[in-house]
């Protein structure tokens, strides 16, 4: 930081500021975008190049307890994909679940500068922050698993909505998390408490609680909106992966009743049934799902596209992982976290000849190609669930290059394509401007990160410069320059510097007396002392508190 930079002659794609390939100078000073740079500022001549804000991944699994279990369980995946150390950067291993340093370098190597870990148990928050501290270059935050939290359930079933909201805020505060996350609400209690059962309906009773998933979801949506969180509640709906689940997804979105809500990896929740039969092969209901999102501006989603090849299914949705184990038949990890969550991990390979896998691939593309408001249907593969983040450039090419898409469609299970709507949206090709929306501007806006995803004055100087190329996969695989906080990290495709990156977190206000409600519960049921549960600031290192809409704008305490 402290240095200045002027990027000249590049075509700038900055949708938040309406720039669609205009040739403009982009100036940087002290880690921020500025209107002008001093005459002696370092110049980058970006002639023939494309300048975009750094990529923002709204949903991925890159750090924390479940990620580390998924790393540990796949030595074979690391062995064939190693990451060499250099004089200045650390070594590591790749595969679908790379080691921490490799994760940071590889994200940066694709031009991404921000990524959100999407599922962390409160008990695992400290672990997650330790890993994120070892994840270089990128800024990062994490979503806190709350949808199966036993104490929150107790408050809800007793109708204590005010205290529920304070407890939710306390938990975000105590963990240094970014947003509340719901995963298959209600499912864990049945999984752990009723011999591996699961929730299948939004109005089903949740085990011993006088609650249903519908009530839980409604309460979280309401509380998150009341708190004015920068990102609303982030929902992994019930019935993920099940034939006919699109009705659950539509019903979940209806619960929002106009309030801001984010539905994640919506591809996995867009499956119909053949002629009303469940248990059969799924069909695509992408058009119904997109139609709902298009017409409900309070709803946003990330796609969670599937890419063929190796993946790792890792999820707080433990019953889902157990179901997937039957298809893979290989290793299976289950990890229950007291009072908070379940977790399942299964290495998995998506195959283009397999009906269901090909259908999932097609639905992912369909969702992108049918979307009318790109700002609310943003890019993700639910890394590494639908595929590694290393497959992002190929996915971008599938969206931008109609001929390539046709060529790939010819290789997959044709019956699956027949049951998708992908053949109906052949003509659409994403432009660079639209790619910049779904991979940068859109996710940043949905996350409430006002200083990211754009190149306007005052934005973080997180910038990626690509060589223009007709082969979009190649273009997005190898940016020529990557700038993080104004620092030149990658120059001429090579790493020039290491960089720590910041933890992005929220600190919503809450009534401190809520601790008197929470503490006795800890003493009865947790095996860790209440006083040792909250994560202290030492784990944050470089960090930034993103204010809620109720808090004064600009409150930040960068470390």
């Amino acid at each position, binding site marked *: 930081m402290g240095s200045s930079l002027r990027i000249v002659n590049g075509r700038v794609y900055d949708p938040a500021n309406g720039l669609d390939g205009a040739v403009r100078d982009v100036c940087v000073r002290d880690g921020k975008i500025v209107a002008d740079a001093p005459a002696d500022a370092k110049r980058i001549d970006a002639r023939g190049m494309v300048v975009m804000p750094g990529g923002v991944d709204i949903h991925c699994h890159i750090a924390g307890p479940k990620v580390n279990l998924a790393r540990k369980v796949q030595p074979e995946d690391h062995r064939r994909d190693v990451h060499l150390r250099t004089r200045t950067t650390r070594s590591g291993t790749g595969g679908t679940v790379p*080691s921490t340093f490799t994760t940071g370098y590889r994200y940066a190597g694709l031009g991404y500068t921000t990524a959100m870990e999407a599922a962390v148990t409160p008990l*695992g928050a400290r672990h997650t922050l330790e890993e994120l501290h070892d994840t270089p270059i990128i800024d990062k935050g994490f979503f806190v698993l709350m949808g199966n939290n036993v104490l929150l359930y107790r408050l809800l079933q007793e109708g204590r909505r005010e205290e529920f909201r304070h407890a939710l805020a306390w938990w975000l505060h105590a963990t240094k998390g970014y947003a509340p996350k719901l995963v298959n609400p209600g499912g864990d209690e049945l999984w752990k408490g009723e011999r591996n059962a699961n929730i299948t309906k939004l109005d089903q009773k949740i085990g011993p609680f006088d609650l249903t998933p519908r009530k839980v979801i409604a309460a979280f949506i309401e509380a998150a909106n009341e708190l004015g969180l920068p990102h609303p509640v982030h929902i992994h709906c019930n019935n993920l992966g099940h034939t006919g689940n699109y009705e659950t997804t539509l019903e979940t979105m209806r619960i929002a009743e106009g309030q801001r809500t984010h539905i994640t990896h919506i591809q996995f929740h867009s499956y119909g049934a053949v002629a009303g039969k469940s248990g059969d092969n799924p069909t695509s209901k992408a058009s119904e799902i997109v139609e709902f999102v298009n017409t409900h501006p309070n709803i946003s989603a990330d796609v969670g596209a599937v890419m063929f090849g190796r993946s790792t299914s890792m999820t707080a949705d433990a019953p889902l992982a157990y179901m997937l184990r039957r298809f893979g038949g290989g290793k299976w990890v289950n*990890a229950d976290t007291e009072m908070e969550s379940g977790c399942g991990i299964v290495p998995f390979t998506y195959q283009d000849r397999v009906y269901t896998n090909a259908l999932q691939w097609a639905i992912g593309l369909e969702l992108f190609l049918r979307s009318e408001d790109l700002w609310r249907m943003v890019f993700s593969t639910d890394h590494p669930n639908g595929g590694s983040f290393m497959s992002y450039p190929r996915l971008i090419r599938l969206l931008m290059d109609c001929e390539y898409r046709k060529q790939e469609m010819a290789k997959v299970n044709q019956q699956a394509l027949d049951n998708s709507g992908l053949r109906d949206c052949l003509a659409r090709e994403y432009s660079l401007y639209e790619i910049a929306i779904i991979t940068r501007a859109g996710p940043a806006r949905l996350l409430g990160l006002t200083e990211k995803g754009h190149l306007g004055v005052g934005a973080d100087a997180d910038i990626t410069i690509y060589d223009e190329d007709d082969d979009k996969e190649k273009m997005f695989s190898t940016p020529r320059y990557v700038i993080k906080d104004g620092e030149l990290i990658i120059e001429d495709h090579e790493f020039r510097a290491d960089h720590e990156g910041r933890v992005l977190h929220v600190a919503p206000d809450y009534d401190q007396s809520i601790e008197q409600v929470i503490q006795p519960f800890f003493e009865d049921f947790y095996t860790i002392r209440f006083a040792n549960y909250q994560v202290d600031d030492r784990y944050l290192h470089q960090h930034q508190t993103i204010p809620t809409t109720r808090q004064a704008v600009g409150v930040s305490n960068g470390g």
Partner: protein
Amino acid sequence: MGENLKIVTDATCTFCGCVCDDMVLTVDLDHNRIIKSENACILGKAWFKEHAIEERPFAIVKGREASTEEGVEEAAQILANARFPVIYGLSDTTCEAQRVAVAIGDMIGGTVDTTTSVCHGPSGIAFQGVGESTASLGEIKNRADMVVFWGGNPAEAHPRLFTRYAVTPKGMYIPNGKKDRTVVLVDVRRTLSTPVADIFLQVKPRSDFEVLWALRALVKGRKVDTSVEQRTGISLAVLEDLVARMKSCNYGALLFGMGLTMNRGRHFNSGALLALATDLNEFTHWVAKPVRGHGNVTGADNVVSWQTGFPFGVNFSRGYPRFNPGEFTTVDLLSRGDVDAALIIASDPASNFPKAAIEHLKRIPVINLDPKLTHTGQLARVAFTTSTYGINVAGTVYRMDDVPITLRPAFDSPYPSDEQILTAIRNRVRQLLGGNRPGAGTPLATTVS
């Protein structure tokens, strides 16, 4: 007793993998020692009592008393000049120190290995092969109505595993504590743990695998011959009864110790047990958990895994992490005479490794970090005196169930922490090498930047 007393509540005991965080410590600040440790078990009480500040040199370099700085310089010279060094131990220090130790291993192209390789390493290997259904200890406390202890003696090795987590405590769905649980113990002999069990299976030595495999067969409805009794000492009727109970409980937990992992069969034993837990999930909820020994051996597994992808026995000489237990595990490296220097942190291999390994330790330059003077410290070229984690040093440790806990040190020590010494060594080695050492497998072009 001095007059200057301090009470530290919610402190954490790092003696064993239970990492109990409910200690109430009374500290005599005049004499720098803990005089009372409420809630600690007998092992914890000894741990707190024995870690007072002793008058020892900050470092001993080549047999002479030295400053920490002199020790750092000598240690850095050794590591910068070594061609195939090993970094070992790490299970009794903070994650913060472990992270620096792995960074040094990466920088110099050495090997990083932890005490996991001589305790639950086979469980780590089994985990890579079959996965694991597992849980945090609170799930066992709140839900487990059947608990099976296999190859361990918690009453003497992990006393509060029984009383705080898995047998006697009352839980959300276990309102009457032990009365609501069926407790099974499997071991080759009776121990102080045996009276806790409702069912005790005394298996013949070296037959754990056969017992586990017979249980797997019965769970899957296969036929098992009555000769199983002759081989294992357990009758078919007892095994069938056990399987019936396992299938009909609501939430079962298998907790296993080194009696299983360091026995004939090693990772096959751990793998059989993990597979049994997985199989049982066809019928009801089952989890399994290795009962870990050292206070932060679980942290070491986690740190080495997140930085390299592998849990222990990781070599960096080619410029990237490689995992190969048997090749890159410390007993093997030393016994074969492969390594030319050793950095040993918070561990005492010279007191418990095989003779051939100890003989090699005597031949090579050894750097040792330990609060106490150990056998390893005595043969080391550089021996640092360090402060004790959890007692003098803050930081993070992971309980045996991967739950991270922040330490609350009781009193200050004049001696530096492992993390401080390792950071100083890393910085000096980096200076000597001019950055990370290129790996043997590194193409030249990627090292010049």
